[in-house]
């Protein structure tokens, strides 16, 4: 589904952050990308989503057979790429419901499906509410405006549930969550696991992986994947910290 080959990227006119990332994700798989601060995890997530401000200086990203990097961010989203933001953005005055229905209809139109009207959308929302245990009142409020940190993260997973992407990238979804909120969010993500959907989680801590058990774990440091393995690799990291990674990176250089 997703094949990243030797991806190199830098901040526009600035520092190079990705130094040749290779990664392959198949449908149904859950991958965790772990790494210390500044290793390029979030950059990778945003480069895949198409955020401006990065320059691709080498490599390719193939998504469902197409050149992902050639698509505008909204085209990637319509093709089924979803990014759960680490810091979800507030849009005052625009209701969550309206925002999400607009998004869903853009995606449906792209797929050649009929748009959903407000009534049908409401019914869909009621069904999805159960997945993330989110307060219905939140949906009528403006997008993320005045939401607590936990509410924002839940709202991201709620959007994930409604939009049903093919590839979901979760950027530090666990950061800033207490243990109960983390459980709820993880439960929502697990409910979204499916043989047709791939999930890529970017995280600093192993904690999240206790609740969402990945098929593959990758360690990203210095802008490349240093090591890949099964879920045990995460435990290894937890015990040893990232120091060994840094040592190895230094060795590589």
């Amino acid at each position, binding site marked *: 589904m997703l094949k990243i080959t030797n991806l190199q990227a830098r901040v526009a006119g600035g520092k190079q952050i990705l130094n040749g990332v290779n990664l392959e994700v198949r449908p149904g798989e859950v991958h965790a990308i772990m790494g210390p601060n500044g290793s390029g995890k979030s950059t990778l997530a945003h480069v895949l*989503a*198409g*955020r*401006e401000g990065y320059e691709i200086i080498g490599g390719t990203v193939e998504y469902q057979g197409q050149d992902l990097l050639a698509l*505008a*961010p*909204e085209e*990637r*989203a*319509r093709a089924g790429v*979803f*990014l759960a*933001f680490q810091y*979800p*953005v*507030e*849009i*005052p*005055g*625009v209701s969550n419901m309206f*925002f*999400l229905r*607009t*998004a*869903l209809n*853009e*995606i449906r139109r*792209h797929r050649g499906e009929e748009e959903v009207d407000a009534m049908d959308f409401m019914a869909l929302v009621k069904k999805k509410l159960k997945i993330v245990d989110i307060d219905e009142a939140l949906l009528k409020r*403006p997008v993320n405006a005045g939401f607590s940190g936990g509410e924002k993260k839940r709202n991201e997973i709620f*959007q994930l549930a409604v*939009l049903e992407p093919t590839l979901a990238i979760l950027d530090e979804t666990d950061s800033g969550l207490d243990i109960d909120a983390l459980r709820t969010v993880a439960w929502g993500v697990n409910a979204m696991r499916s043989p047709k959907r791939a999930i890529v989680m970017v995280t600093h801590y192993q904690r999240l992986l206790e609740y969402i058990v990945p098929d593959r774990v990758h360690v990203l440091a210095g802008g490349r994947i240093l090591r890949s393995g099964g879920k045990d690799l995460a435990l290894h990291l937890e015990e040893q910290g990232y120091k060994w990674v840094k040592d190895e990176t230094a060795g590589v250089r």
Partner: protein
Amino acid sequence: MSSAREIEHFAQAEYKYGWTADLETDSAPCGLNEDTIRFISRKKDEPAWLLEWRLRAFRHWLTMKEPTWAKVHYPKIDYQAISYYSAPRSTAGKPRSLDEVDPKLLEEYAKLGIPLREQEQLTGVAVDAVMDSVSVATTFKQKLSDLGIIFCSFSEAVREHPDLVRKYLGSVVPYTDNFFATLNCAVFSDGSFVYVPKGVRCPMELSTYFRINASNTGQFERTLIVADAGAYVSYLEGCTAPMRDENQLHAAVVELVAHDDARVKYSTVQNWYPGDENGKGGIYNFVTKRGKCAGVNSHISWTQVETGSAITWKYPSCILLGDNSVGEFYSVALTNHRMQADTGTKMIHLGKNTRSTIVSKGIAAGHGQNSYRGLVRITKGAEHARNYSRCDSLLIGDRCGAHTFPYIENQNPTARVEHEASTSKIGEDQIYYCQQRGISAEDAVSMIVNGFCREVLAELPMEFAVEAQKLLGLKLEGSVG
């Protein structure tokens, strides 16, 4: 596409109404003197008192100076190079019903999206359409007159209801008021007149569409709306003009009067031609709008969505004379390209327990300059007066400007005045967030702007709100890269 470039591209929205109708017009030669005024008055068959009033205004105008305090810049206007009267020739015989109106004129209005006939039948909005200087047709007249409501062109009101016109004309905006209003008093051409009698609630929205068509023409409408005791009326005003390279002057005056327990709601969606992206052409819009809450418990509410004009100079105001009267001002002003807007309101509290609310949303894109200028004055006798003001500005791109000039004058210690202001920028992160959910950058900007304006748009009657929303999106097309 980079967001900065996208912001650029978005600002390139085209003006949709930029066609000129090929209609024969009957115009006054350019220039302004007492003869011009006599010519206009004669054309309109006016009584002597009205000509006298016009001439008094003109003589006073000669002693006045054009104001320079607003934060707008434009080349000096040559008042002698303007034609002060232009009528599509076919209305010379004064049509009595739509059937007698030149089909070309009706076609023209249909292009504007106001098919008079359909509007008459379908939407139940009574429309008075003013092209250049002459009121073309007023729909639904009979139904209204059964209720005793007068809704007609200003000229007709002068002929048919001279006592009412004489009683109220200049009673809110006197002919000495300000440079542009005084000019209007001297040369005003036509406009709408509304009178709602005691205790009557006007059952439909009343609407006027203004269009400037002929070149080198100034348009000087005069609108007068009177709600007698206990009456209610909601009035909508829409405006368009064709694209022309030269600037066209528009100086209207609107007067509202609300007696005891009466309520007047006045909504505007202004879409005059704003000039091209380099600031060539466009309408100079110098308008005086004022309402007088004359009676106790009276209520006047202004809602405006200003999306056009090269220059907007406009301060719809309320004089809160009656005890417990309420004044409201809800405004969205959008400036793109080289547009300049200096707009706001004045709330003059005279009566006891008077209340006013001001909500202003300024949006600046391109090289647009957007200023809010407002005055809240609480006079000595205005016991327990209250005002709440909020002025928010939204910037799109980094070459536009937003400015706020709030003035508060309080002479009564029992008054309560609150003022809040904010300035924000449409963030690239907001646009990116929407894009990541499948929404294009243009739609994202439109969505963010409409969200920003939500409180004001909510004040508009339904169909008008939809139109305003679309217009805001359209006006910003291309301003986000």
